[in-house]
Structure formats: C-alpha cells, structure tokens
C-alpha cells in the first residue's frame, strides 16, 4: 500500500531547504505520495528513513521469477478482496535414473484444453537419485536440451556445486537449503544468481533461514514449510501469509511451496496448497485424471473475482448435430454456458449451441442491460453460419421469451420458447423430438 503524504513527510528532514526543487518538504511529500518523485530526489534524507520507506512500500510478498513462471506477489489473504495474481505452478520430477527423453515426452503429454485455455505442466524438477555428480550432470544436460521451460535442481550442496556451472544460465530453482547446509546453498544461489528454496518444518527456524539468505544478498526465495499433511499445510501456510500481509514480517514475504509424492494424498496436498497460498507444488508424478481437475481448480481459484470468466462467442456443436438439429443460444457467462452445455449433453440429443457475447453477463442481467437483444442474437447467429448449417428450430431461453416475436421476424424461421431452468432442458429436448 502506498503511504500518504503525511507518512512521507514524517520521514523527511523538515528543513525546507528547497534542494529537491520544491518550496517545502511537505510539497515534496505530496509529490512522493502521488508517485511523481522519488525519495532519492531529496539529498538529505537519512538511511533509516529510506529503509523505513522501503519496507512499507515493498509488496508484502515478493514476486520470484523462475524463467517465465512468476510466483508470489500476492497482496491479500482472500480471493474476494482482490484477484490472486500468480497461479500455482505444478512441477513433476525427472529422476536422473530414468530414461530422460521418454520421461520428458510423458510430461509434455500432460496437456489439456479447457474453455479455450491450455493447461500443462509448468516445470520439471530434475532430481539426483543416483548420488553421482557425473550421472546427474548428464541428466540435467539432457533435460535442458529438450525442455525449454523452467526447471528445478533437486540435490545436495556438494553435487549442486558441480552441476550449477552447466545450468546457471537457465536460472533454475535450487532445492533446497535446510538448517544443515544453509551456508553452502545460500552461497551457491548467490554466486550463480539463482532462486533458492528454504525448507524447515519449524517456523521460527524457517524465518532464521530467510534472514540469513537475505543478509547474504539472496532475495529470490521460496519457502517450503515441509508440511507432511493437509493440516500442517493449511496452518503453516496461513501463519506465513498472514505474517507477511498483516504483520509485514519480511522473513515470510516470499512465495510458498510444497514437495509432495504421487498418488491420492499428493493430489489432496496440491489441492490444499492451491487454495491456500501455495505458489509451487512439486510432484513425483501426476496422472492425467488427477491433472485435469487440479488444473481446473487452479483456474477457478485464480480467476478475477470481479470479472466473470467468459467463453468466446461462437458456435459450439454438442454431440454431432446435423442439418436439422435444434439451435440453442445463450450468453457467454461461463457458468451459464457450462450449465446449459451439461444439461444439453445429459439429453444425449445433438444440438447446435450458439454463444452470444454479453460481456460475461448472465441471461437476465444481459437482457436488461441491452446486451442480449433480439438484434444482437440474430447478428451472432448469422455470423456463425449456423443458420445455413441447420434448418432446425431456434430455441429461446425461457427467461427472455419476450424476444421471440422480434427474433422470429429477424430470422424468418420458426422459434420456440425453451425452458426457464437449464435443468429442464433434457425433458424439453426429449419432447421436442
């Protein structure tokens, strides 16, 4: 949050010396509050004032970039206050013992499209299971050759020292510094400008680690609370994030992550982490039937709560509609779209579904706002070409039955008033036949 002019004023020397070009310190403070000047423009401001200013103006949670993946940067505790900014990243593990090209292929296959958004794995974590620096270096090179996204290096400090020379140019995330090896790991992160994970199950010791890293000049930090179960995950993540946002506790002002295994419990952990402040989850492995629901959860949690998600205007065939299939239309508010779509699918009768751009408003709201008029509907039906692909009847959502005469006139074909409730569509379709 930006401080007020008075808060800035308190930190200035109050000598009105005019060296900043302003007549008074207060005038300068007002420029600062409006972000029209920088603290440095006053040559007399003290070191303490600068530090105090930095800690109040710095975002409560640092944004840490690993390649093109941003983590953290959050400013609120609940998503209704303001949109959560940087979605949880999911990584899967590549052991240096496995067949690397085969494994990378499998990881790349974990990719889905859902409502126009492509979901796939954000990172891989190359893990040293062999205990052999030579084997690990080979594996890391093989991964770098076929994976252009960000990655994580998971190994002890000794081996990391050897492999980092080959990999530092890609700025991998280093996993991880613990109490025992903190000095070495922090030095490697510092020397190679790589982001670093700090891990401790004790929250006070985790804060100590963060302080040590920051003192050494390593600021791109990710925190791993070592949570072994759902309860630890929600409790520790809440403590960390509340400390950062409510108490401005610098040592916890970093993104959070979880290292999980694979299978049912790992997915449950990822679900909790995604809802509760996790920026990264590293899996041993992830199955396609686990990935799609998890990615969908992330999409839901990181949606802007102010702007409803919208689907693209266009024609959506459901089943395999033909030249006589009925034509439905509705708004592009995603909840409306999904509901109508699901209910049409339930009937098992093929239908052409036209989505009309209503700026994400639902049927009634859009209609009263004039964004779902007969003219607008006719226009989109014409534009999509559905009228030439089917001579079927046009079904008007029951809530906007009032547009039927007008739409009939504009389209010059039969229209019928459909159901008010989406859930009655299957029955309606069966009777239409």
């Amino acid at each position, binding site marked *: 949050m930006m401080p007020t002019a008075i808060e800035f004023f308190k930190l200035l020397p109050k000598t009105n010396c005019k060296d900043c070009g302003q007549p008074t310190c207060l005038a300068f403070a007002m420029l600062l509050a409006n972000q029209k000047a920088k603290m440095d423009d006053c040559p007399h401001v003290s070191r303490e004032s600068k530090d105090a200013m930095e800690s109040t103006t710095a975002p409560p949670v640092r944004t840490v970039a690993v390649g093109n993946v941003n983590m953290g940067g959050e400013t609120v505790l*609940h*998503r*209704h206050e303001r949109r959560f900014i940087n979605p949880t990243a999911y990584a899967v593990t590549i052991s240096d013992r496995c067949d690397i090209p085969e494994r990378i292929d499998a990881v790349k296959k974990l990719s*889905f499209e*859902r409502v126009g958004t492509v979901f796939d794995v954000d990172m891989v974590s190359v893990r040293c299971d062999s205990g052999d620096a030579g084997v690990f270096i080979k594996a890391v090179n093989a991964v770098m050759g076929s994976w252009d996204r960000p990655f994580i290096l998971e190994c002890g400090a000794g081996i990391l020292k050897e492999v980092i020379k080959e990999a530092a140019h890609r700025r991998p995330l280093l996993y991880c510094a613990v109490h025992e090896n903190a000095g070495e790991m922090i030095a490697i992160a510092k020397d190679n400008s790589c982001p670093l994970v700090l891990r401790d199950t004790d*929250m*006070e010791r985790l*804060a*100590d680690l963060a*302080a040590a890293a920051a003192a050494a000049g390593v600021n791109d930090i990710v925190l791993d609370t070592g949570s072994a*179960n*759902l*309860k630890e995950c*929600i*409790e520790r993540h*809440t*403590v960390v994030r*509340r*400390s950062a946002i*409510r*108490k401005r*506790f610098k*040592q*916890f002002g970093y993104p959070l992550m979880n290292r999980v295994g694979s299978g*049912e419990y790992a*997915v*449950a952990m990822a*679900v*909790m982490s995604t*809802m*509760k402040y996790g920026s990264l989850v590293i899996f041993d492995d992830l*199955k*396609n*039937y*686990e990935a*799609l*629901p*998890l990615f*969908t*959860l992330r*999409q*839901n*949690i990181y*949606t802007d*709560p102010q702007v409803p*998600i919208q689907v693209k205007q266009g024609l959506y065939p459901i089943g395999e509609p033909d030249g006589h299939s009925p034509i439905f239309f509705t708004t592009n508010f*995603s*909840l409306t779209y*999904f*509901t109508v*779509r*699901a*209910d049409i*699918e*339930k009937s098992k009768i093929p239908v052409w579904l036209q989505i009309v751009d209503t700026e994400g408003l639902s049927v009634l709201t859009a209609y009263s706002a004039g964004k779902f008029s007969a003219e607008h509907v006719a226009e989109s039906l014409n534009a999509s070409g559905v009228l030439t692909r089917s001579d079927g009847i046009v079904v008007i959502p029951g809530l906007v039955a009032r547009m039927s005469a007008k739409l009939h006139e504009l389209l010059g074909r039969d229209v019928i008033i459909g159901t008010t409730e989406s*859930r009655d569509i299957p*029955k309606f379709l069966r009777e239409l036949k």
Partner: protein
Amino acid sequence: MKIPETDEKYQGKINETDLGRGYVAGGADGMPFLSSENTGKRRVMIAGEVVDDLSDYPELAAAMFDGRQRDPVEWARMWMSLGMDMICLRLKGTDPDKGKRTPKEAADLVKNVIDAVPLPVIVFGCGTPDTDREVMREISAAVKDTRLILAKADEDDYKTISSAAIAGGHNVIAFSNLDVNLAKQMNIILTDFGVDRNNVLMDPLMAPLGMGLDYSYSVNERIRLAALSGDKMLQIPMICDATGAWDVGDAVSDDDGLGSAVSRVTWWETITAMAAMTSGADIIIMRGPAAADMVLGYAEELRCG
C-alpha cells in the same frame, strides 16, 4: 527468531445446531482447520446421497454401489457402514412425471430409512414445488419423534416447508443462490416466519469445480468471515452439496486422453468438497463412495483440537 502472532480473535461463533439422533453441527469460532484460533472441535460431517428413483441418476455412479442403489434402505445402510455421518435422501420418485411414489409412500420410505440407520436424515423432494409441498407436509406429520432436515426453503417457496418443519420439530435448509446478502436474507425470512434459528442450516449453493466453484468459494468465505465478525444472521451452519460435480462434462466424459472417467469424477467431486469445507462448509453431501471416503478421511485429519 520470533515470528508474529497471527491468530484472529473473532467475536462470533457458528451456532450449534442439533441434527437429532445425537449429532450436532457447527460451533466453529475461527476459520476452518486452524486449531490455534478455532476451538470448535467438530469434524466436517459427510452425508451420503440416496435417491429413490434412478432414471436421472448417472450410471457411472450407480455402478459403484453394486446393486445396493436399487433399494434406498440398503443403500443407506451401506453409507453407514462406510462411516458417513448422515443420509441425504432425495425423493425423486415423487415427481408426478415419474408417477410412482405417493406422498404417503414417500413418508413410509423415510420411516424405513430412519428405522434402518440411526443417522440424521436430510430429505429432499423431487423439485416440483406443488408435489414437494404435499410430500413435506405428509412426512412431517408421519415422522414425529425423529428430527429430520427438510430441504429446501427458497425465497419463492418457503412457507409450507417451514410450517412442516415447525409442526414436526424438524430442521430446515435455507437455500440461496450464490450471494452473501441473499443467504442472510433467507435466514431472516425463515426466522421471521417463526422457524427457530436453532433449526436452520444454510445452503448458499456450491457450484462444482469448473462450473463456478470460484464464486461459491468466495461467497462461502465471505459468509464465514462475516459470521465470525459477529453477524448473527450468518452464524448458521453451512451445508454444501458436492454432487453437482457429476454434472460437469469434463468430469464424466469418455475421453481416453483425459484418463479414466471414474477416477476423474471422483477427483472432481472430492475437490469440490475440499473447496467447500476449506471455505466454511460444516456438512457436505456426497454422491460417489470413493470420493466420500476420501473426503471423510481428509475431514477427520483436518478437524481442530
């Protein structure tokens, strides 16, 4: 180094609602699962769904019950043996279009379920208002000494069900559609009508994963935060229905690229339920036995105290 104290001290506490048969819901005085601020030690409760007519029931789900789904009483027993806390009985068969079950027969079925399992029972009608009114009246008159949870009262239609609940000493579910103010409004309407606040549960509509879960998650959170901050009319235990997950195309579609539909829908419902309980739900209605079992396990692990 010392870390900050971050526990919240809230003014409010969620009402402890007697569900009958020795079960109580609610009592939280902090946000979900945070033991250091929430002294409500009750676990989130899971209700297993039973329907009396399978014509609209997904085959994928039916297959998981191995025939027992054809007899609502057997089905309820199975839920109990799986460790569930409640039964959610949907009387779909009272729908005049399906035309099989009269209100009297529906009441008999409710009695049979009560006799078979000693758990609290939530009773839904078929969704046709005229029929539901008759069915609820009949059930309330027939079941006197066991407290039921009658579902559901909404803004347009609450009088009959509320009267039935008052007359029979039952609880009633106040339904609202994804809106904090409407949720509060419904609780006010019911108490103004004469329903005791101790007999109300609220259902703010749990939109499933991928179909509006984000709205529900935030509405639930806002309801719970407002309740804890002292808004009496929101200090009502929250019930969320996760079975909507079975209506999501991506959850149940046959698509090899997406992996097994059975596993996918199980996760779909489980995640919907996890989001519900993390945002404030006290009771969750579940359809799939595998999902219900997972959610029950997680709820047990997450309970405070």
